[in-house]
């Protein structure tokens, strides 16, 4: 693919799906990016029109289209609200792949997606070397959320307040975990996700505690790596397939009934994107990947729908908790009531709804890296809603959202703490 005409022909494979857009503009109402900039090229209708024009050779600047395509959180709010049901995320993912293939992938991304992430031993080694060093450059932000910041690295990290890396990540604590099934009991494969493994280890420990409490055996193999969504979002299918291959290798041979993750984004990726791209591994493992996708389940959904965890009567002194609907949980997986039940399962907490609970927090994974200013602006609206709810804690079912919530709350010097829903439930179990 070296000429614009060839690029256009590749993009024409999206034509049928793009034509479904009736240009009604209803995506403007829900798009967090449009909410922040008010620019038509930032909303799905505008982006679809740009891809269409590139495909029809009306526009001859693929770099400009790539830039616009990158200004998107891939939160799926537009798709969930789209009257004619355009498969917007599918189109955006494929367009990113085609356009980025034409333009070439950034060498740093190439290194991360194709070398580091498909080889968890390398990735883990790099992060373990890095973790003890963080004390040298990061200092505590002095906030209620316990984040750190790195003023000397402002040129690189911006003014981010982030959760510190764990001294000992989960994979180093547990190695290859393969608990025996209790008689007649359930067994799950647990997919902590990169952030659950290396950063929010308390969240992961809480999940493991809850599973133990309910007598569920856990299979957590050593070779698990990134679910692949960052690579896919950057249009790097090669990188994503490398990571998928590594995960397939790790999961194969395990005996389990469900594949659980505490991360809404990982679960959505396993369920939706793994089976869609599996045939491109060329290894004939589509059947296994499809089985993994069918088994994949958000941990909140598992607790409520399978283990039948129910809400408790809140105590008189129950602390109010507000819940943020992660986009991948609610809009991709349809998981909205279960995390709320999980919060209420602990009588020490009571749920207080915030306004626009299902509006995107603005993290968007790597979107946050490249568009931090917009990410912060979108996050501020979420922060305002969190604070207005009067809750002491904001819970979420996705560590990426938790990072974003901590960052915006910390910057506003708010006392609201950020927790994963399962952490709250785990507190009630002994």
């Amino acid at each position, binding site marked *: 693919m070296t000429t614009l005409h060839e690029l256009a022909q590749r993009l024409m494979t999206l034509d*049928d799906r793009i*034509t*479904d857009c*009736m*240009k*009604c*503009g*209803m995506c*403007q*109402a829900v798009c967090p990016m449009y909410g922040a900039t*008010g*620019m*038509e*090229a930032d909303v799905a209708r*505008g982006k679809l*029109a*740009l891809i269409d*024009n590139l495909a029809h050779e*009306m*526009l001859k*600047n693929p770099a*400009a*289209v790539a*830039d*616009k395509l990158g200004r998107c959180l891939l939160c799926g709010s537009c798709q969930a609200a789209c*009257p*004619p*049901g355009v498969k917007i995320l599918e189109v955006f993912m494929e367009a990113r792949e085609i356009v980025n293939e034409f333009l070439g992938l950034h060498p740093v991304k190439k290194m991360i997606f194709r070398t580091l992430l498909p080889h968890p031993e390398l990735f883990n080694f790099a992060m373990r070397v890095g973790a003890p060093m963080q004390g040298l450059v990061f200092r505590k932000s002095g906030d209620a959320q316990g984040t750190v910041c790195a003023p000397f690295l402002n040129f690189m990290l911006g003014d981010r307040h982030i959760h510190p890396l764990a001294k000992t990540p989960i994979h180093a604590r547990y190695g290859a975990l393969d608990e025996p099934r209790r008689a007649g009991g359930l067994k799950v494969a647990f997919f902590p996700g990169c952030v659950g493994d290396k950063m929010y280890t308390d969240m992961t420990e809480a999940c493991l505690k809850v599973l133990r409490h309910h007598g569920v055996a856990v299979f957590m193999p050593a070779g698990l790596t990134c679910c692949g969504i960052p690579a896919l979002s950057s249009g790097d299918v090669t990188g994503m397939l490398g990571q998928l291959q590594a995960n397939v290798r790790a999961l194969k041979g395990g005996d389990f009934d469900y594949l659980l993750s505490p991360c809404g984004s990982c679960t959505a990726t396993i369920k939706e994107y793994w089976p869609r791209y599996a045939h491109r591994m060329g290894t004939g493992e589509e059947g296994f990947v499809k089985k993994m996708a069918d088994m994949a389940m958000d941990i909140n959904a598992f607790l409520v729908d399978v283990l039948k965890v129910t809400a408790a009567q809140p105590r008189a002194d129950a602390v109010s908790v507000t819940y943020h609907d992660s986009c991948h949980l609610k809009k991709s997986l349809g998981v909205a009531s279960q995390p709320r039940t999980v919060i209420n399962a602990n009588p020490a907490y009571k749920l207080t709804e915030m306004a626009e609970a299902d509006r995107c927090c603005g993290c968007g994974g790597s979107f946050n890296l490249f568009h931090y200013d917009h990410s912060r602006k979108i996050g501020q609206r979420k922060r305002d809603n969190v604070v207005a709810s009067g809750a002491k804690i904001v819970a979420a079912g996705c560590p990426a959202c938790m990072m974003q919530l901590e960052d915006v709350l910390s910057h506003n010097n708010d006392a609201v703490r950020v927790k994963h829903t399962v952490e709250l439930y785990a507190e009630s179990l002994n």
Partner: protein
Amino acid sequence: MASQALIKDFEELLGKENVFSSEADRMSYSYDSAVLPPVMPSLVIRPTTREQLSACVKKLYDNGIPMTVRGSGTNLSGGTIPDKSDTVVILTTGLNRILEINTNDLYAVVEPGVITAQFAAAVEKKGLFYPPDPGSQAVSTLAGNIAENAGGLRGLKYGVTKDYVMGIEFIDATGATVKSGSRTVKCVTGYNLAGLIVQSEGTLGVISEAVLKLVPPPKASKACMAVFDDVQHAADAVAGIIAAHVLPCTLEFLDNNTIVRVDDYTKAGLPREAGAILLIEVDGHPAQVADDAAAVEKVLKENKATAVHIPKDAEEKFKLWEARRAALPVLARCRPTTVLEDATVPRSQIPAMVKAVNDIAAKYRLDVGTFGHAGDGNLHPTFLCDKRDKDEFSRVEEAIDEMFDVAIKLKGTLSGEHGIGTAKSKWMEKETSRGTILFSQRLRRALDPKGLLNSTKLVGI
């Protein structure tokens, strides 16, 4: 693209973040919701104050540059598509403040780019009601609603946007500020220029502020769904309801094609054999709502409704309306292109119009579903096609030509609420008269001597 000097001037005036000159950005303002060819503007500007807005218009007028005003770009008749390649698009979305909601005097003052649904929610929070609810209300702007005289589901009882405009301040083609109307119920100071701006589709001036009427909200409401074998019976029921002196706040209609498609999609168990469904809601004081609902039920039964469903609670009521909410999305999913029309006839002519639409669709071998606002005769025949199929799309165009002929013969109108724009300008004279066109053009030329404001829209200039 606009000259560098002009871009620089606007950047100085508005800030770089409010001047969009790249090809990709300009391209995203080349279309609206109408099924029409795009036209890329030379520049897009977004003033954020009234002063900036008038300075922008003046600069463009002084330089003889054509302009198209745009809110959220949800227009269904092409009114916000630029006229030519040297057109500059003026966005009103940067002027989006609600300036006042006066609960004592029942009015609100707004900037042009306030989103309709957000405004309605803010008004509701203050315990009042802004009734106009066009289908695009979640994203449409109030000035866009005014410039198109947008309708919605509540037209029969509450009227449309024009019924809520008390005053308008606008920038004329030369950049001068014009004020008309006031915060008072009565105001006869000068020409009713606010009335002239309503429905002017961006051809006479750029709205910079509006005073909108608010009303007390109804205290209660009650809904029901009635099923009919025949469209004629549904129309008789509509006439009967009006004759019984009940004005429902919504009186919606779905034809058989729409019912079947919605049922296919939602599996809601709708009556697939029905000729038509009416969805009716009455609102007001609880005692009157009870009386009205009883009267409506009686009329429905007298007019051969085969079933009348009355929801028991809010949840059931929500489900009842699902069929209507799903109508357009479901029809839109059937085929790639959705041509949503809004031919409107006197309500007694609904059966004749529905029959004509179906006959025309059969003649041109087209898929059509019709739903709409039975209470005010405003139907939405929705043609389902693929605009990439040139033969099919030309049949759609012929079918629409014929449909408008029927609407006019039935003493109806081309457009109940979507506007004329460029999509329907060729039929204007047929519905009105040669004199109407000439008068409108003379009016435009007098107010916009250089012919810069949305020049190809409505009657042209």
